[in-house]
């Protein structure tokens, strides 16, 4: 008999974890066996590798460099709407990439707002495609993330230290060197590494804003080898390169981020005595306004040009929307079916291997898993027929690491606090899950389900590998409209996608919280 009787068994969690690991490793093995390493990397592959690293490096650098003044301004100012703004900084996580890209094109593109303003001054229009467009979109997504992470560093500085510095008369530069610089030196490297790793695997941005021999990432090269040349050997080899890259960058990020928590309590304001003069206040205000504008204007532009066409959208858009809702629903159910047993098993205490299986989804990019699944399915069935189930499955696996981060701490708490009582009442297995664990986890389940639904709804990844011309999810349909230069219809469809993604998140998250009880 075990020393500590537990109300949940680890069996189902172990089975799920083994299943997830089998899918991921199966896909990777298929990739490895199919890869034609004999050919080596061609000139264009080397160019893709260089471009991937270059854009990820620049994206990380710009995101963090710009985030530092924004986080500093947010850390030392109190103003109406501060809470909302900080909450909005979390939104890009579930914002569909294609929506943001469309908005960026409408502000920074050839015919965009910026070019029009430049035109008034007699200047030539700007271009958004290529390296700077890819970096711009990555900064759009990662500036908020970097800001939140750095802001957390600022919030963790004890208020007493600011008081002491104020008492010593430190202001501005002195304050920065004394307190803020040491904090930044501690947190910035890991944030750089995290954003670098994220940008390495970004596919949809490169697909829409990159391309051509000078702006192709490895992921994009995989897609092209697939779609245009149908060269599975080359796609598999590139997948192996991408996998190596992600694992190295991921390991680096994990190593640098040892012991860092997740962003909580960001709306606390630490009392500050520095920077109260007119000049720094003005500067902070300008920084915050610029950052908010950079994040909100593209969405505004997209909304403004999408709104008029919303009701006259082509029929394919609506059927694609229906497909997306279906895929997102299946993906959400799959995610919960995987995450709940795993969280319950991890909550028992000895979950080292389980947690590892949980973060495997981060190591292999969705496109790489997709490539592997394509190779696995092909000998016995037409992969194109599997487009939607595979998309739903890969989306669920991608969200699994985040869902576990949301579910596990609370599940641990419930098992620790109420496990003994449940065991003494002979509540085990299903009765415990049904009457104790799931009711106590409602808010977290709602949040995780919301993430799964929103991310799956907006995903433009695996589906591009598998879809034939008759099948499309909404993001893919928008991409096709953009390719056909129907920008207004694309904007309308993007608006619909935005509403669906955020609506799904809001509904599930709220549904969970509304019924959750202390």
């Amino acid at each position, binding site marked *: *008999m*075990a*020393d*500590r*009787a537990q109300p949940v068994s680890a069996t189902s969690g172990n089975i799920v974890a083994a299943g997830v690991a089998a899918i991921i490793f199966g896909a990777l093995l298929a990739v490895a066996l199919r890869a034609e390493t004999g050919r080596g990397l061609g000139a264009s592959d080397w160019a893709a590798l260089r471009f991937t690293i270059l854009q990820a490096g620049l994206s990380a650098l710009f995101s963090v460099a710009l985030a530092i003044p924004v986080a500093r301004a947010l850390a030392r100012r109190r103003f109406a709407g501060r809470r909302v703004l900080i909450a909005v900084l979390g939104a890009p996580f579930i914002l569909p990439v294609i929506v943001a890209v469309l908005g960026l094109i409408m502000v920074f593109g050839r015919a965009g707002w910026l070019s029009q303003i430049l035109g008034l001054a007699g200047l030539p229009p700007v271009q958004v495609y290529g390296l700077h467009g890819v970096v711009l979109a990555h900064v759009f997504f990662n500036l908020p993330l970097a800001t939140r992470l750095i802001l957390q560093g600022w919030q963790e500085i004890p208020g007493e230290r600011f008081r002491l510095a104020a008492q010593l008369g430190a202001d501005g530069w002195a304050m920065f060197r004394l307190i803020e610089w040491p904090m930044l030196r501690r947190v910035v490297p890991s944030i750089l590494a995290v954003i670098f790793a994220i940008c390495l695997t970004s596919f949809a941005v490169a697909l829409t804003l990159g391309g051509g021999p000078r702006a192709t990432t490895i992921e994009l090269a995989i897609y092209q080898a697939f779609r245009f040349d149908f060269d599975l050997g080359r796609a598999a080899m590139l997948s192996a390169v991408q996998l190596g890259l992600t694992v190295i960058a991921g390991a680096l990020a994990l190593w640098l981020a040892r012991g860092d928590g997740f962003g909580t309590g960001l709306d606390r304001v630490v009392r500050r005595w520095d920077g109260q003069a007119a000049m720094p206040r003005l500067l902070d205000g300008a920084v915050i306004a610029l950052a908010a504008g950079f994040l909100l204007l593209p969405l505004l532009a997209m909304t403004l040009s999408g709104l008029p066409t919303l009701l006259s959208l082509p029929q394919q858009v609506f059927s694609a929307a229906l497909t997306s809702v279906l895929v997102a629903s299946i993906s959400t159910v799959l995610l919960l079916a995987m995450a709940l047993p795993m969280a319950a098993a991890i909550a028992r205490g000895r979950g080292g291997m389980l947690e590892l299986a949980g973060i495997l989804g981060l190591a292999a990019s969705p496109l790489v898993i997709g490539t592997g699944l394509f190779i696995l399915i092909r000998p016995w069935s037409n992969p194109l027929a599997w487009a939607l189930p595979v998309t739903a499955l890969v989306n669920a696996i991608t969200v699994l690491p985040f869902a576990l981060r949301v579910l596990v701490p609370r599940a641990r708490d419930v098992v620790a*606090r*109420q496990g*003994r*009582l*449940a*065991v*003494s*009442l*002979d*509540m*085990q297995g*299903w*009765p*415990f899950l*049904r*009457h*104790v664990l799931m*009711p*106590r986890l409602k808010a977290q389940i709602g949040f995780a389900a919301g993430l799964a639904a929103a991310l799956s709804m907006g995903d433009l990844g695996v589906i591009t590998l598998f879809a034939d011309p008759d099948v499309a999810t909404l993001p893919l349909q928008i991409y096709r409209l953009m390719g056909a230069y129907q920008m207004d219809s694309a904007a309308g469809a993007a608006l619909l996608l935005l509403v669906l993604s955020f609506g799904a998140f809001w509904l599930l998250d709220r549904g969970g919280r509304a019924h959750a*009880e*202390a």
Partner: protein
Amino acid sequence: MLKLEDCIIRNGTFGLSAHLSVPARSRVAVIGPSGAGKSTLIEAIAGFLSVETGRITWNGTDITDIHPGARPLAMLFQDDNLFPHLSVAQNVGLGIHPNLRLTASERETVDGAIERVGLAGLGNRKPSELSGGQRSRAALARVLVQRCDLLLLDEPFAALGPALRAEMLDLVADLCDETGATLLMISHAPEDARRIADQAILVAEGQAQEPQDTAALLDNPPKVLREYLG
């Protein structure tokens, strides 16, 4: 009769030896210095800690390796005796069926127990809407429907004030009389032990001793207990 035969119970690096028997329908206090192993003893009887050597029997049946939920006993912990998201009636109902599927007559039993402990009409309340004393009563209502032969208390009333604690102990004594249950309760307060337990097990120096007369033990305590009682 509850019997612990040559038991050695290990809790981390700490080991407790116990060789004792508790007669049926008796009320026994477990007393001793802090950290002496009172909770270790109770948790081993409840099945949360395994016994390294020796065996535990209830009325001659070996229960040493039985799962905690399947032992013929009910236990109240120091805290968290109710599920905060379930109503009082649901919490009590768990004592009958862990999956909460109750027949009409079982529901009546639940209502009767709630009434018996003085919570009539509060069955739909959540624990957070009850006072500390009411929460203790709700937990006791569940013990009542569990119909167990043996009741283990790991100081569930420690957070209550003296008057309320005495009230709860009297209720426990009454319930044990009504159901014929045997009571084993950890106590830090000598007056609690005197109040309802005529016998007491002294746990000290790595050993749990045979029950002895509570009054005699407390009136003339051995050295380890004297230092603890002060």
